[in-house]
C-alpha cells in the first residue's frame, strides 16, 4: 500500500533533555526520519579554560545530573594522566564502587521510570505504583541502593563531593561500607523480582547490524580506563580517542554525530556486553541467557536487557569490592602531586557508554584546552539510521500510525539518551 505518513514529535518525553523526531513517508517512500536534538548548548569546554585542575572535576560533573560521577572521574583520569599522578589503590577501588552506584541508579531510572510505562501502556510510572506495586517497589529499592552506594563512596548521590585529583578527599567509614554490604545482600531479591518482570515482557525484535564500541582491559568488566575496542576489530590506545569518534556536525542538531568503521556505531550497556561478555559475573551471564541475550546482539531493544544484566553484575562486583576494601587500610587515599604541563585522555564507561574527557594543562596546572565526547553523541548516528530502518519496516508490515509512533519512541528510549549531557 502506498501510504503517506508523518510524525512530528516535539520534545520527546521520558528521556533526559530536549529532542524531536520528524518522519515523512510519501507514497510508501521514506523521505526522511530525523533524530533532531534541540537542547541548549552550555559550552563546558570553554568554561574550564583557565580553571585550576583541582576545581575542574567539580565543574565537569555538572555536565550531567544523572552521570555526574562519570564526568568527574573522566576529568580526574585525564588530569592525573596529564600530570603523571598515580592515585592510591584504595582510592581506585572506591572510585570503581562509586561508578557501580551511579550505573545502578541510572539503569534503574531508565528501566523503571523511562521505559516500563511503554510496556505497560501508561504515560508514566505513577499509575504503576498501584497496578504493579511489587515491581515498582523492587525498582525503587534498587535505585535507592545505587544512590546509597554513590553517597557512601563520594559524599553525595548527584554531583560527587570527595572525588578529587590525586585520589579522594575523604574515605568512607568502614562501618558505612559494612552497612552498604548488608543493604546489597538484602536487595538481591528485588533484582530477582525485576528480572522476572522483564522476562514477562515481549521485547520488540529489530535488527540493523552495526558496530559496538567500549573500553576493554582484558581482566575485568570495563569501568575506568583501558583500551578502546569495537566489534569490527578496532583496538586503539586511550589517548587515540579522536580517531575512534571522528565527530561531525549536522545542521538540525546541537549534539554532534560520530562514526568509526561504518556510518554509525553504538556505545552503552549492549556495547559493553558485546565486547566484554567473558568478564561478566556468572550470575549476570545466567540472567542474560534467560533472556536469550548473547554477544553480539544487534537488537537495540536488548540494550534494556543488557542494562538489567549489568545490574546483576554490579551487585555481585560491588559486594566483592567492599569485601576487599574492608581488608585494606583506608588511610592512604590521596597522592600528593606537582602541578605540571601535560595532556591526556580519560575514558570511563559511563552508564550510557564510553565517555572521553581530554585535558591539556599548563605548568601551573590550569586547563588550557578541553574536549569532551559524550556517549549519546556516539549513539546519535545509530539512532538516526535506526529510525529510518524501523519506520520503513513498520510501514512495510502495515503497522498503524500509532504503532509506528510508539516503536519510534521506544527505539530511541532503548538507547537511554542523555541529551543535555551530549550538548554540553
Amino acid at each position, binding site marked *: 500500500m502506498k501510504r503517506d505518513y508523518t510524525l512530528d514529535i516535539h520534545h520527546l518525553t521520558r528521556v533526559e533533555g530536549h529532542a524531536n523526531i520528524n518522519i515523512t513517508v510519501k507514497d510508501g517512500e521514506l523521505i526522511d526520519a530525523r533524530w533532531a536534538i534541540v537542547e541548549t548548548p552550555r559550552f563546558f569546554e570553554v568554561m574550564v579554560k583557565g580553571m585550576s585542575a583541582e576545581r575542574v572535576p567539580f565543574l565537569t560533573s555538572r555536565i550531567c545530573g544523572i552521570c555526574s560521577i562519570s564526568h568527574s572521574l573522566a576529568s580526574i583520569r585525564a588530569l592525573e594522566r596529564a600530570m603523571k599522578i598515580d592515585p592510591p589503590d584504595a582510592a581506585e577501588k572506591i572510585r570503581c564502587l562509586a561508578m557501580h552506584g551511579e550505573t545502578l541508579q541510572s539503569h534503574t531510572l531508565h528501566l523503571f521510570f523511562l521505559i516500563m510505562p511503554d510496556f505497560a501502556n501508561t*504515560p508514566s510510572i505513577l499509575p504503576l505504583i498501584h497496578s504493579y506495586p511489587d515491581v515498582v517497589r523492587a525498582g525503587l529499592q534498587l535505585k535507592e541502593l545505587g544512590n546509597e552506594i554513590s553517597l557512601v563512596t563520594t559524599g553525595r548521590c548527584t554531583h560527587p563531593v570527595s572525588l578529587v585529583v590525586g585520589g579522594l578527599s575523604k574515605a568512607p567509614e568502614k562501618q558505612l561500607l559494612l552497612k552498604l554490604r548488608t543493604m546489597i545482600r538484602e536487595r538481591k531479591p528485588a533484582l530477582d523480582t525485576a528480572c522476572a518482570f522483564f522476562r514477562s515482557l515481549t521485547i520488540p525484535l529489530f535488527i540493523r547490524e552495526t558496530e559496538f564500541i567500549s573500553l576493554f582491559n582484558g581482566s575485568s568488566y570495563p569501568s575506568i580506563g583501558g583500551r578502546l575496542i569495537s566489534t569490527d576489530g578496532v583496538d586503539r590506545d586511550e589517548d587515540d580517542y579522536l580517531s575512534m569518534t571522528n565527530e561531525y556536525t549536522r545542521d538540525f542538531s546541537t549534539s554532534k554525530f560520530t562514526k568509526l568503521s561504518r556510518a554509525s556505531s553504538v556505545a552503552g550497556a549492549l556495547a559493553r556486553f558485546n565486547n566484554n561478555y567473558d568478564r561478566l559475573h556468572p550470575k549476570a551471564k545466567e540472567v542474560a541467557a534467560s533472556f536469550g541475550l548473547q554477544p553480539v546482539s544487534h537488537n537495540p531493544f536488548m540494550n534494556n536487557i543488557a542494562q538489567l544484566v549489568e545490574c546483576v553484575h554490579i551487585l555481585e562486583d560491588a559486594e566483592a569490592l567492599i569485601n576487599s576494601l574492608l581488608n585494606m587500610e583506608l588511610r592512604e587515599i590521596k597522592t600528593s602531586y606537582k602541578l605540571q604541563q601535560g595532556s591526556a585522555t580519560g575514558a570511563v564507561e559511563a552508564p550510557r557508554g564510553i565517555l572521553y574527557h581530554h585535558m591539556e594543562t599548563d605548568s601551573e596546572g590550569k586547563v588550557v584546552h578541553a574536549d569532551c565526547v559524550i556517549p549519546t553523541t556516539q549513539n546519535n548516528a545509530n539512532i538516526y539510521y535506526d529510525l529510518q530502518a524501523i519506520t520503513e519496516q513498520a510501514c512495510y508490515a502495515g503497522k498503524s500510525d500509532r504503532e509506528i509512533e510508539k516503536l519510534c519512541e521506544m527505539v530511541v528510549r532503548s538507547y537511554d539518551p542523555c541529551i543535555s549531557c551530549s550538548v554540553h
Partner: protein
Amino acid sequence: MKKQGFTFEKLKIASFDFTCCEGCQLQLTNKESTLTDFFELLDIRTFREISSEKYDDYDIALIEGSISRQDEVERLTTIRSQAKTLIAFGTCACFGGVNSLKNKFPLKEVVAEVYPDMPVETLLVRKVSDVVKVDLSIHGCPVNKEEVERILVNLVTGSQVSLPKYPVCVECKELLNTCLFELGEICLGPITRAGCNAVCTTGKTPCLGCRGPSEEINMPAFLELIKERKLSQNDFQEKITFYNAFEAFTSYEA
C-alpha cells in the same frame, strides 16, 4: 485528599528544564523510601523527564536551569503567565549557576570553539529572575531533596516557607568537622546560606557557595580572614565566581 488527619488539595505542579544538567529534577525521583508518599502530595501536570502527560493547567511551576537562548525566554514567559507560583529550582535557576562561567568569554569565541563549522545561537546566561518574576527560590547544586519535600509540604498545608538565614559554617561546626581554613583552604562556608547540611565540607572539600549568600553576611571580616592567613587571591576569585551566586560581591578583593 486526607492523610494523617489532614485534609489537603494535591499541588497541581509542573516541572520544566532550561539550560542545565537536569540534576535538580532528578532529585524529585530520589529519596526512594519516601517517594510514593511524596508523589501522593502532587498532581503532576507536566514533567517531561518522567511522564508523557502534558497539561497546561498547573498552579506551581518548578523551573530548573538558567536562560541562554531566545526560545527559552519565550517558553519561560508562557509558563509565568500560567503559573500562580513560579519556583526557581536549583542554583542555575536562582543565580545562573556554573553556566554563567561562559559569560567571561566573548560569545563569538565561545561558539567558534565548540561549533567551528556551524552557526549556533547562544545568549549571555541569565538567572530566571532576570527574565520573569520569581515567587520562591530553592537553592542548591543540586537541590537537597529533604528541603524540597519540606517546602512542598509547606505549600500543601499552606504554612509559611522558611529557609535558613545562617551560614553553612554553623551546620559544619555542629557536625564537629575540622575547619578547612585550619587545613589552609579557602572555604565559602562562613558566607553561604545553610540548608545543605554542610555536605561538601563534611566530605573535606571547600564550600563553593552554591546556595548563595546567607542573610547577614560579613564580607569584610571574611576577606580579612583570607588576608590574615595569606591565602590565594586567585583561588578566592575562582571559588566566589564558580556558581555566580555572589554576583554582588565579586568585585571584592581579599
